[in-house]
C-alpha cells in the first residue's frame, strides 16, 4: 500500500513547519504586508533553537528563544515596510539571503563546523503520539487565528487596515500598529516553525535547512487565500507531497526527482488557481448575443 498511516504521519510531520509559517504569512497578508521573508525568519528560528537547546540542555528554551529571535529578525521587515515605506519584496528577499549567510557564519564561529551540526546529546522535542507538541500547537493556532481574524475586534480592525489603511486611519485606528503586530506575530510563528524543523522533525542544524519551505508557505498563503482553514488545506497538500516524495525514494526513484515533489506540486497548484481565477473574471461575452 502506498497510502497508509506511516505516510499520513510523515505528512503531518512535514506539514507543521509549513503550516506555522503560512499562518504567519496569512496574518501579514490580511494586514496588507506582503511577507516573503518567511524562509529567512524560519531559518533564524532553526539556528536559535539548536543553539539554545545545546547550551541550556532544554529544547523548550530552544523553542522560546527561536520564537523571540525570529520575531526580532522580523522587525527588519516591519521597520522597513511600515516605518520606512520600503518595498516588501526587496526586503523579504534580502532577509532570506541574509539569514542563510548569517546562520552559516554563526555555525562556523560558535560550533566550529561547516555544513551540519549534530550531536547525540543535542536535546530534541519529546513526541506525543508520534508528533511533536508543536504540531498540536499549530492546529490549535489555526483555530485561534480563524476565530481572531473573522470574529474578534482585533481581527476586524486588522482586516480593515489591510484593505484600506486610509479608511482605518480616519476612524482612529493606526495602520502602523496593526502591521507591526502582524509582522511580529509572523516572526513568532516562523520561529516556532524553525524550532519544529530543527528540534522536532530532526535534531540538528544544517546550512539552509529550510530548503524552500518558507517559499512554499508563501504559496500556501496565496493558495489558501490567506484564510486560516484554506492555509491549512494548502499546507497539508504540500506536506503530503513531501511525504510522498520520501516514499517514492524508498521505491527506488532517484532522490533528486523525489525531492522535487513539493515544488512540482507548488507550481501545479499555482498554475491551476491562477487559471481558475482568470476564467472567473473573464466576462461572459456569449451571454449578450444569445
Amino acid at each position, binding site marked *: 500500500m502506498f497510502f497508509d498511516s506511516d505516510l499520513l504521519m510523515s505528512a503531518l510531520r512535514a506539514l507543521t513547519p509549513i503550516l506555522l509559517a503560512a499562518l504567519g504569512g496569512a496574518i501579514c497578508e490580511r494586514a496588507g504586508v506582503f511577507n516573503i521573508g518567511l524562509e529567512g525568519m524560519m531559518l533564524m528560528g532553526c539556528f536559535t533553537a539548536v543553539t539554545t537547546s545545546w547550551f541550556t540542555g532544554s529544547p523548550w528554551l530552544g523553542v522560546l528563544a527561536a520564537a523571540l529571535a525570529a520575531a526580532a529578525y522580523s522587525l527588519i521587515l516591519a521597520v522597513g515596510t511600515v516605518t520606512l515605506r520600503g518595498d516588501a519584496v526587496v526586503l523579504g528577499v534580502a532577509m532570506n539571503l541574509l539569514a542563510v549567510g548569517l546562520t552559516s557564519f554563526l555555525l562556523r564561529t560558535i560550533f566550529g563546523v561547516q555544513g551540519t551540526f549534530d550531536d547525540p546529546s543535542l536535546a530534541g522535542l519529546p513526541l506525543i503520539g508520534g508528533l511533536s507538541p508543536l504540531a498540536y500547537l499549530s492546529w490549535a493556532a489555526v483555530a485561534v487565528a480563524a476565530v481572531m481574524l473573522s470574529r474578534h475586534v*482585533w481581527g476586524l480592525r486588522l482586516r480593515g487596515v489591510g484593505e484600506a489603511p486610509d479608511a482605518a486611519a*480616519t476612524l482612529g485606528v493606526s495602520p502602523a500598529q496593526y502591521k507591526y503586530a502582524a509582522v511580529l506575530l509572523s516572526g513568532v510563528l516562523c520561529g516556532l516553525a524553525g524550532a519544529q524543523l530543527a528540534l522536532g522533525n530532526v535534531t540538528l542544524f544544517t546550512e539552509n535547512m529550510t530548503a524552500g519551505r518558507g517559499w512554499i508557505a508563501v504559496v500556501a498563503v496565496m493558495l489558501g487565500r490567506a484564510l486560516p482553514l484554506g492555509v491549512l488545506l494548502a499546507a497539508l497538500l504540500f506536506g503530503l507531497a513531501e511525504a510522498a516524495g520520501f516514499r517514492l525514494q524508498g521505491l527506488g526513484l532517484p532522490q533528486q526527482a523525489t525531492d522535487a515533489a513539493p515544488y512540482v506540486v507548488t507550481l501545479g497548484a499555482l498554475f491551476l488557481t491562477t487559471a481558475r481565477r482568470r476564467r472567473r473574471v473573464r466576462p461572459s461575452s456569449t451571454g449578450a448575443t444569445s
Partner: protein
Amino acid sequence: MTPPPADPAVELRGITKRFPGTLANDAVDLTVRRGEIHALMGENGAGKSTLMSILYGMTRADAGSVRVDGREADFASPGDAMAAGLGMVHQSFKLFDSLSVAENVVYAAEPRRFGLVDRAAARRRVRVLAEEHGLAVDPDARVGDLPVGLRQRVEILKLLHRGARTLILDEPTAVLTPAEADTLFAVLKSLAGQGRTVILVTHKLREVLEGSDRVTVLRDGRVVARLVTAETSADEIAAAMTGRAVELDRIHAPGTPGDVVLDVSGLTTDGVREASLTVRAGEIVGIAGVAGNGQSELIEALAGLRPTTGGRVSLLDADITHASATERRLKGLAYVPEDRHAVGTAPAASVAENLAMGHHRTSLSSRGLLAPAGVRAHARQLIDRFGIKASAPEVPASALSGGNLQKLLIGRELAHEAPLLLVEQPTRGVDIGAIQNIHDQLIAYRDAGHAVLLVSAELSEIRGLADRVLVMYEGRITASYDKDEADERTLGLAMAGGTSSGAAVTVEAVDRHEQADVD
C-alpha cells in the same frame, strides 16, 4: 424670524493657513448654526478643503480659533474631531470593500461580547439607524457590491453610529445621479430637522440652491460672500465664486448637420445591447443616462477598447467594427475618456509629453524617433491655444489642477482635427469658469464641421450642447429627442426607465429617429 440659538454648531474665527507659495486660508470666519444645512462654496483651490481639514483636525492652522458647540477646540487628529461630535464624508469614500455594511459601520466602535464583535448587535444597530434616518441598506451586503449611492449611505451611517452631531460632506453629489442626489438631500433635510448640522462642501450651484439654508463663498482663500439661500440666486453665487459675471446653463444654438460620420447599427458588447445611432458632421449627439447603464461601455467599444460582439460600426463609410484603437484613430477618431487621470493622461509624464501622445504617430516623429523641438513647439502651441495653466511644458501632468488637466486632454484630442470626437464627462470636477471654456471649445469644434458624440452625467450640459439627445437605460438606447424637446423632466423620466406615459413618448421618438436615420 426665530432668534439664533445660543451657541453655533461650528464657529471658525480668523483661520489662516499658508502653504509654500500660497495663502490657502486668509483670516476666514465661518459660523454654522445648529440645525442648518450650510453650503461652503468656491472653485477648486479656493481654500474649502484646507478649511475643512483644519476643522476636522487633519491640518493645523497657522492662526485662528475653532469652536465646536461653543467650546474651544484644537483637534490634533480626526479622532479628536469625531469625539467632539464632528463627522466627515470624504469625497473619495473611506470604506472597506470586502467587509459587510454592518462591519463598516461599527468599525473601531464595535459592539462586543467577550472581545468578539457582536455581529447581531451590529446588524440591529444598522437597521435601527437606517430606519430612523431613511437610509435603507442591507447590513449584510458586501460594501464592494453596492452602487455608489448606497455606499454614501454607509458613510453617513458610520458617522451617525458614532453620534456625530455635525456632518461635513465633501462634494457629496459628484458621483451621484440626479435621483440619488435628491434622495441624499431629503435625508440631509431630515437630519437637520432633528437638530443635526450639515456642512456641504461643493461647487454645484443647483444643489446648493435646492438643499441649503445659508451659503458661504470662498475665493482665493478669503470669504467673499455670506448669503441666505432663499434670498440669493445662482448667478449671484457664481459671480461671487468666479469674481465675474458668468452665464450659467447656456443653451447653445443648434448646429447644421451634414453627412453621416459615425454609423452604428445594432452594436452589442458586454453591457450594451443592440445600440444604433448616427452622428453627422457639424452635430453634437448627447447620450444621457444614469451612470452604469452602458454609456461607458458603448464609448469604449466605439473607441476600440472593448471588443464588439455584434452589430456594425462604420466611420466615414469604412467598416471599423473590429478595428483596433490605433486603426480607428488613423481613420479619423479622437477620444476624451471619462477618467482623465488613469486613462486620459500619464500623470508622471510631462505636460509636453502628454500633449504629444497620439500626435507622436503623425507629426512629431521621423523614422521612429521623437523630434524634441517639435514636441516642445507643439506643447507651447496647445498650451496657448487652450489656455492651459502650466508653469512650464516640462512639469509633470500630475502637477496640474483637475480643470487644467482636462483642458490639456481636450486640447490634445481636439488638435487631431479628427472628423469624429468621442467625449465623456468633459467637465466633471471642473470649475465653472473652465466649464464655460470647454463648452465653447466643443461648440467651435462642431461648428468647424466635426461630429461629436458626448456622454455626460450633467443634464444641463447635455441640454446646453447637444443637438440631439439619446437616453441609455440598461444597456439599450431607449429614447431619442431633438434639442427643443429634451427638457430636464422628460430626460429624467427616460433615464429612470420611463413611466407608463413616458414610455409611449419614448417609443415614438425612437421610431421617428430610426426612420430619419434610414433616410
